[in-house]
């Protein structure tokens, strides 16, 4: 796909063009306070990553699915109304490649040959995703080690990177191509620059061999390893890791009703909670945090790769590393797993 250039002087018209017929979401704010928000114009490129991953755009923490009423005097009592598919055309600018990859992993959960989630699908397919490559990684970043790249292209329609106070762009899909063509961006040959920048950015991240070892290990060896009790010991079971993870996608269905009717909604759930697996009988197959912590790391590093042709469920965004109150660092855990199964 071709590359384009947006000069500093045309940034405003570039973003203006993006908002034509759709809403633009872009990162606003700094540090911990950086969020995807509706935007109209030139956006700051000076951020490490958004506080929450962009999954919330497609999979909100609380999402109403359907409503019903129980008023006998209304026509068609007790019928329900689908509340899905209210998505509006959207373009997101500034998704980091790790998060874009995360979205593509979740996308395979919500849309596959067995099942399509209409709530996800509607939003996902009406959204164009413009990534922003990372020139200098943060201390918690390790996307390359997870098979990605600061210039990764998976899950994106367009990849952008800061260039001379303007933007360098590479379109990655026909929709992306069409979008960029509708802007003032000019075609340019940036392939080698992108290659150089990507190489530098990858080198800035420490190498981590543990993942290959995990890939190579047998599932049951990893599962039955002795270290899990120690690994889980500091865990508070809060589930912050899952809330911030760009690939965690578990949810809980809830009905809320009053005397007029009710709604069914889904809310983010977390495998770190004991309630997540509690059965109605009282039995819980993951009774303690040891099983739950194992589940999370095994899911990210073994189960998803098995299901998604070797693609790891962790994209190396590093949010859990920063957010975990007990500093349970997935990189250290991976090292322990690799060591234990070796």
């Amino acid at each position: 796909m071709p590359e384009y250039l947006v000069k500093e002087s045309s940034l405003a018209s570039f973003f203006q063009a993006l908002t034509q017929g759709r809403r633009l979401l872009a990162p606003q704010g700094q540090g911990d306070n950086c969020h995807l928000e509706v935007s109209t114009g030139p956006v700051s490129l000076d951020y490490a990553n958004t506080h929450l991953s962009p999954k919330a755009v497609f999979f909100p923490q609380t999402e109403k699915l359907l409503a019903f009423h129980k008023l006998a005097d209304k026509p068609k009592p007790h019928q329900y109304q689908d509340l899905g598919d209210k998505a509006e055309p959207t373009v997101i600018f500034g998704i980091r490649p790790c998060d874009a990859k995360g979205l593509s992993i979740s996308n395979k959960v919500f849309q596959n040959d067995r099942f399509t989630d209409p709530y996800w699908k509607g939003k996902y397919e009406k959204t164009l995703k413009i990534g922003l490559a990372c020139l200098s990684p943060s201390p918690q970043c390790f996307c390359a080690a997870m098979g990605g790249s600061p210039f990764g292209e998976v899950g994106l329609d367009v990849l952008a990177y800061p260039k001379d106070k303007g933007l360098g762009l590479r379109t990655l899909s026909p929709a992306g191509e069409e979008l960029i063509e509708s802007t003032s961006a000019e075609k340019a040959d940036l392939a080698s620059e992108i290659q150089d920048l990507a190489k530098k950015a990858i080198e800035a991240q420490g190498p981590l061999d543990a993942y290959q070892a995990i890939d190579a290990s047998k599932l049951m060896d990893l599962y039955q390893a002795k270290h899990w009790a120690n690994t889980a010991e500091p865990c508070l079971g809060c589930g912050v890791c899952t809330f911030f993870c760009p690939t965690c996608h578990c949810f809980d269905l809830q009905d809320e009703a009053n005397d007029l009717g009710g709604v069914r909604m889904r809310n983010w759930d977390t495998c770190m909670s004991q309630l997540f697996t509690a059965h109605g009988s009282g039995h819980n197959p993951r009774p303690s945090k040891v099983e739950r912590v194992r589940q999370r790391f095994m899911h990210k590093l073994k189960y998803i790769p098995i299901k998604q042709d070797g693609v790891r469920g962790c994209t190396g965004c590093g949010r859990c590393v920063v957010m975990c109150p007990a500093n349970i660092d997935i990189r250290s855990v991976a090292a322990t797993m690799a060591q234990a199964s070796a």
Partner: protein
Amino acid sequence: MASKNIVGAVLVAGGGVAGMQAALDLANAGYYVYMVEKSLAIGGRMAQLDKTFPTNDCSMCIISPKLVEVGRHINVELLTLTDILSIEGEEGDFTVTVRKNPRYIDMSKCIACGECTKKCPKKLNNEYNESLDTRKAIYVQYAQAVPLKYGIDAKECLFITKGKCGTCKKLCPADAINYEDKAEEVTFHVGSVVLAPGFTPFKPTEFDTLRYTDVKDVITALEFERYLGATGPTMGHVIRPSDHKDPKKLAFLQCVGSREVNRASNGYCSSVCCMYAIKEALIAKEHSGGALDVSIFYMDIRTFGKDFEKYYEKAKAAGIKFVRSRIHSIQPESGGGVKLNYVTDGGASTVELFDVAVLSHGLVITPETKELAKKLSLATDCYNFAQTSTFAPVALSRPGFYACGAFTGPKDIPSSVMEASAAAAAATSKLTPARGSLTKVVKVPTPVDVSGDPPRVGVFICHCGINIASVVDVAKVVEFAKTLPFVEYASNTMFACSQDSQEKLVALIKEYGLNRIVVSACSPRTHEPLFQETLAAAGLNKYLYEMANIRNHDSWVHAGHPEEATRKAMDMTEMAVAKAVLLSPLKENVIDVDPTALVIGGGVAGLNAALTLSSQGFKSVIVEKDSKVGGNANRIHSTTKGESVADYLSDLKTKVQNDPNIELVLSSQVDKVDGYVGNFTTTLTTGQAVKHGVTIIATGAKEHKPTEYLYGENRRVVTQLELDELLKADDQNVAKAETFVFVQCVGSREPERLYCSKVCCAHTAHVAVELKKNKPQARIFVLYRDIRTYAQKEDLYKQARDLGVIFIRYDLDSKPQFSEDNKKLTVKVKDPVSGHHLIIQPDYAVLAAAIVSGRENELAMKYKVPLDEDGWFFEAHQKLRPVDFATDGMFMAGLAHYPKPMDEVVAQAQAAAARAVTVLTQPKMTVGGIVAEINQARCSGCGVCKAVCPYSAIDLDDKGKAVVNEAMCKGCGNCASSCRSDAPSLRGFTNAGLFAQIATAL
């Protein structure tokens, strides 16, 4: 006896608090009770009180559960408006003839709606409010009366007297009025008789100098009590009667009609007036926001009971003035109020104006009671109080007759209640073979198991005649109820509580397979038990019932807003249905009761408790830490009535030793305690394990070792008990002694021991009298702070003074000074009358040393019962449960509870036994119902539930998780609301049920 017929029933005459307690204890111990009450309703004087001292409990609040219990007890037959005509026969089988006077109301029909009274044209003095307001000729005695049935005052009713009017009959929606009602004579048999006729307040009409009859602003204390009462004539607002303005200054005049031989012939002290005056003063002051100026004019402040002295101090701290002066006369002031002349402590003559003078009138026996005593040939004293002995304080002179309450002397509520239980025990000591022979048992079918079935709710909306239906659109509520989830059946009914409605309810339950019942009618407080019985009769678990109070809480109070009232009735019904749907059948489990008592302490209290239990046929084990029984009584010479304690004690010991029902374990103490009511196992330090169903703590108290007045330094200084021991031993030095100084309150009523030891004044007066009698020339001085010879013991005080004993008052800040010079003891005390110092050189100085508790912390912890700050065991309720602990199956008697003279010790011991019998008499106990349970999966073992449980019903098990002992739980739900993770839930009031009610309320 064996050959004779023994009747398993007892007559209780008088429906006041004492009579009620006696009736309940008797009925719960397996005897059928005929309760005869001459008025329309039970409740007696206590029902008239606003608050009770020293806790300021709301009197009605604490008495009304008792009223309801008596009213509903299957083995208490309530005979109201009834007079006793004759009692023939002897103990074991008396024939009682009574006259039931007409009520003119069919009690089975009256629903107490009050329609009749609204239009009754007669306005009459309302006796309940001491005639300060009016009632009608058809009336209830008071709003919470039991039985809650109207009655017609035949002397005043226009229809009955003149054949005119008849309005009430026209208005009564239940057709309950019967002008043709006639008196009838009824005869029945009982084994014994308990008399609890109570007292009447002294009417100060004959005291012309106090101007009660002609000056409006002179009122009696009971009148003042009614002014304070929320249900009183001014709804709790204190007024100056002459102009209904807020009074600013109030005077209480103590001892009106008490301690008064000149004008009233009432030489005794009425025992309660000091306390009720302080109470009324405090409450009135509180009502006024503290602005009210209150003075209490007194001779001696007699705050001798448990926590009374603290109450007195609290009153002083609150600014109530106490003036030691007996007011002779009251003068009215023009423009309202009164003028009092009095002499202060310093001797100055003073005039002071007050808005209201309250006469603290004494307690007297009514002429009717006097007549009854005469008719029954019962010995009475010169004040018409029934005569008893110290060692049999509730037995009257004629076998088979027992008494409790003010009949044997003026006394407060807890003493009356104690005596009531004691009388229940004494009155049945000879009836044991007939126990259970006449009592009825409710037989109900085994409930159908509906657990797991989908709810099928039946809803019944009551018209209550026109009481509900005239305001609420009942048909609309019924139609609405039919739309509610799980409602299978809904209908209206004219009177849900009527017999035919109840029968219909049973039929409908079966016909529609209903498994939850909702009745929208009146208050569950009065009617829930009735409907629950009906459910049980229909084979439904009685807890599958919920009530909506659409009468008291709706139609009666929103008469002007029928639409809103109907909406509210619908909401209330919906709330009840929502809760009912979530109700579960509650199991009541049966536990075995070990019919044995453990009595801890072998003093007079413990021995009496065990003997009383034995007379009732129950075994007990007495554990005594000493090597001999008798306790403090071993040291006492004679009682204030002059009876020899040594003789009594040796008789008592013999009885105990020969009693096959009593096992005595000496030189032993409690080591370890397990179990709960019905099933205790106590291991003694001897290693013996005792299985018992109840525990009576009678660990006594000790005489304080004085640390002042040269005690222990000079041999002439002895304590009261030491003097008794010398007297017992006929000590020659004492016999030779010429001069005695008695010092009262040694260690009592001091800041570190802020209570009165209760027995010392009377004992001192008694000993002084004895010494004087033996040696009239002896010089005896009693140095005192307030003389507290309460009740008839006042006679001893008078007798001592008549014999020349000199009483000199001292204050805490000018205590007598003791000095020693050449082995000569010198006592210096200031005479407050003359202001001079008196120097006495006594042969003996006798210190009335305080009675101090044993501070049985360990024992208390083992049985999980509380001690108060002075170390006395803390009863379940200071007024109404004076021998019970809050923890079931635990009782107390004697000095362990509080200092008291021997007659009260014996009474309390008998009372403890009576209370114990109510447990022991049931071979099995039913527990459960509305009690808490713990979901242990949710329990963290933090112990908050255990800490907040008022009944010690929660413990942590060996896994550290909470468990509820159903036998001890009373269903308050404190645990359920205190637990952070909702491990406990209160059956019948579950979170789910309450959340459902909240949701449907909105």
